[in-house]
């Protein structure tokens, strides 16, 4: 029985080989699908961020590509649909994430792996992507040593600003009002106890001091803090016109809520990650008006508003005004690069991603020659129910800033 089967296989292999030799043009059969896999935090501390920023974008992209019949791959001369063959929960544990990435690349042997969520996880995963030659479109990551990192890991790409740029974007706005005497030079700054909070507050602090600001309050609070009333009270008592929080989504919501109940109305109220979430606007409604936050988005770009409506309709989640559109844009780049390369060969696709730009996306044209997207939104503001980009002011589609923030 086994011998027979083996013989049949051998015969089939011979026949296949013969056919291959005879018809070199149709070298390989087209695969049924382009196999996609990812490991992301579906449970644990990172789950909220992943579910808000990243996952709906993945789902929408798969939906959109397949609605068009797939990606045209010249090598096979046909459109091939994408299929998520593996979707794993890294349980917000870095060690689990690494192991599951290895599973995707060496066991499941998927064609492309979509990145995990958060700076830490992406930096930890970068060596594995590089080792197995998978393009690593690490959207939800930023670091001050990006240039050195992309040299070390040649498959890695960064899409968001480096921490230092966020500080510059914020200070650009502050300076305008400080120089015209409408804003005092006192700053109250709090930060979450995490690499994000550390790097942001360090970056902000250095820039602010260099521009002649006086940081009258600087505090960090633990990740997952359940109450931030003291932080808000101290900020209120500090006499600063500007409140800056290097915060994560749960604390962003908590700080805003507490500031409202405490009647704390600084002229500039800035919170970081989570401010750009659609939920922020839905939650605080008219009170969100004038709140500043990290990120930014230009809804006037071609395809942008259409993308917003489509994601809401298909996944039930409105995208945020920062990394969500960029996540979708990164997948548009992958799609276009596969099409342009005409193959599923990862090395060729990678080369095309680097050299085939600039790519037309819903976040505008993006060029990845340096593996780093250089010019991006640094700061945004809630204006009439939308989180829009306000700085750097030389970005296309920049909106005029609302000053001071209206009272809650």
């Amino acid at each position, binding site marked *: 029985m086994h011998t027979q089967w083996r013989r049949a296989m051998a015969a089939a292999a011979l026949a296949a080989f013969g056919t291959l030799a005879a018809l070199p043009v149709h070298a390989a059969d087209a695969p049924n699908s382009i196999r996609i896999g990812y490991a992301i935090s579906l449970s644990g501390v990172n789950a909220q961020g992943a579910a808000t920023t990243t996952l709906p974008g993945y789902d929408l992209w798969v939906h959109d590509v397949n609605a068009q019949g797939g990606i045209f791959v010249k090598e096979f001369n046909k459109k091939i649909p994408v299929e998520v063959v593996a979707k794993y929960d890294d349980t917000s544990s870095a*060690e689990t994430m690494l192991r599951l990435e290895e599973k995707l690349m060496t066991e499941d042997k998927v064609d492309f792996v979509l990145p995990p969520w958060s700076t830490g996880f992406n930096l930890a995963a970068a060596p594995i992507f590089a080792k197995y030659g998978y393009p690593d479109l690490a959207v939800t990551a930023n670091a001050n040593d990006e240039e050195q990192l992309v040299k070390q890991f040649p498959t890695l790409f960064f899409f968001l600003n480096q921490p230092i740029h966020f500080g510059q974007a914020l200070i650009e706005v502050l300076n305008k009002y400080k120089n015209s005497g409408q804003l005092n030079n006192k700053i109250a700054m709090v930060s979450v106890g995490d690499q994000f*909070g550390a790097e942001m507050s*360090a970056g902000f602090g250095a820039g602010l001091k260099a521009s002649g600001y006086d940081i009258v309050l600087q505090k960090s609070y633990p990740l997952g803090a359940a109450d931030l009333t003291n932080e808000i009270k101290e900020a209120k008592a500090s006499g600063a016109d500007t409140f800056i929080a290097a915060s994560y989504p749960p604390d962003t919501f908590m700080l805003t809520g507490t500031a409202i109940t405490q009647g704390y109305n600084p002229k500039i109220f800035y919170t970081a990650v989570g401010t750009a979430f659609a939920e922020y606007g839905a939650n605080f409604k008219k009170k969100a008006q004038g709140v500043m936050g990290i990120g930014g988005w230009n809804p006037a770009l071609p395809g942008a508003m259409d993308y917003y409506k489509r994601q809401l309709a298909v996944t039930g989640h409105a995208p945020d005004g920062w990394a969500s559109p960029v996540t979708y844009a990164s997948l548009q780049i992958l799609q276009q690069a596969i099409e342009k390369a005409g193959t599923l060969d990862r090395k060729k696709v990678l080369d095309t991603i680097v050299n085939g730009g600039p790519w037309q996306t819903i976040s505008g044209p993006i060029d990845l020659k340096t593996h780093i997207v250089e010019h991006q939104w640094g700061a945004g503001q809630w204006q009439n129910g939308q989180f829009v980009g306000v700085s750097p002011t030389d970005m296309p589609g920049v909106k005029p800033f609302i000053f001071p923030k209206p009272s809650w």
Partner: protein
Amino acid sequence: MAASAEDRRRRRTRTAAAIGALVALVAVLATVPLLTSDYQLSFMVNVMSYLVLTIAWALFSGTTRLVSLATSAFFGIGMYTVAMSIKILPLYASFALAIVVGAAVALVVGVLTLRLSGMFFVIFSFGLSEMIRELMVWWEINQTHTMGRYVYVPFDTTMIYEHLLGLAVVVFLVGWLLRRSRLGIALLVIGEDETVARQVGINVPFTKVAIFIVSAMFMTLTGALMAPRFSFINPNFAFNPLVSFVVVIMALLGGLQKLWAPVLGVIPLIILSERLQTQFPFWYSVLLGLVFMVIVYFLPRGVTGLLEDIWKALGRPLALPRGFTGPLLDAWAWLSRPIFLPRGLAGIIEERWLKIMPRANEKR
């Protein structure tokens, strides 16, 4: 004792056989990296690291019966010490430094807290990990202004695996020797009854601290060995409180009576977690929680207890199946019982009377 020579010989043969089997097993395990894919190897790394952690945990908690949730604290200390020292020290020196730091923390913590008992110690040990993590976070934010350290060393997964395998052998041997040492016996007495232990002259605090340090050193070294697996480490990666809980559950599942019992807890739980993470990604937490509840309710002595029960049941003389006649016989037997006569009020009066006026031939 006449049988002692015979006994000794038998014990010697058993020991030799056990050592032989262990050596063969380790030899087989050592070849794993040659045979498997990278993913399977990292799976084995996970198994080995939890094996060491669980046996090390059982060394302390299985004997003193104090539930420690400090595993993630020591694991994290190991990992973060390597992350902080790797730029200035050679790799093995930073491993050694990690052990020293881990032992020092265990000494201080042990001396301060091992007088606490029960619940208080559990809470403190849990707080320890969180406290150190927040301390590191504060340090990095305020002193280095960056969080997350890069660890690039030529110490690949194969090396990590082989080192962890070696460590597993060592922790196993330490546990084995401990059970045969005065310290081990002292610990067992403490676990049974601390007051008795003190009465028979055991230095209870010293003994507890000593085993706490030994256990912590293994946990610390495991964390240190796992550090090169990450090219990027921050305190939140290193001090993951889940590690403490998973280790306790693994030890409970395996059982604590036997030294090798944790193996039976580690392997099924890791396979289960991996299955849940990959096959039912959205249900991972829910299903894992259910499994924990099942373990606690239905397997109080762990898988080892279950195996022992099955073994005993197999050794028992076979009970003949009773079939349909069984219930009939039972019913017949029940019906033919002598009837208990109700004693009524007379009985109560009789009782009272007997209390007041005992019979002459009855002793009070």
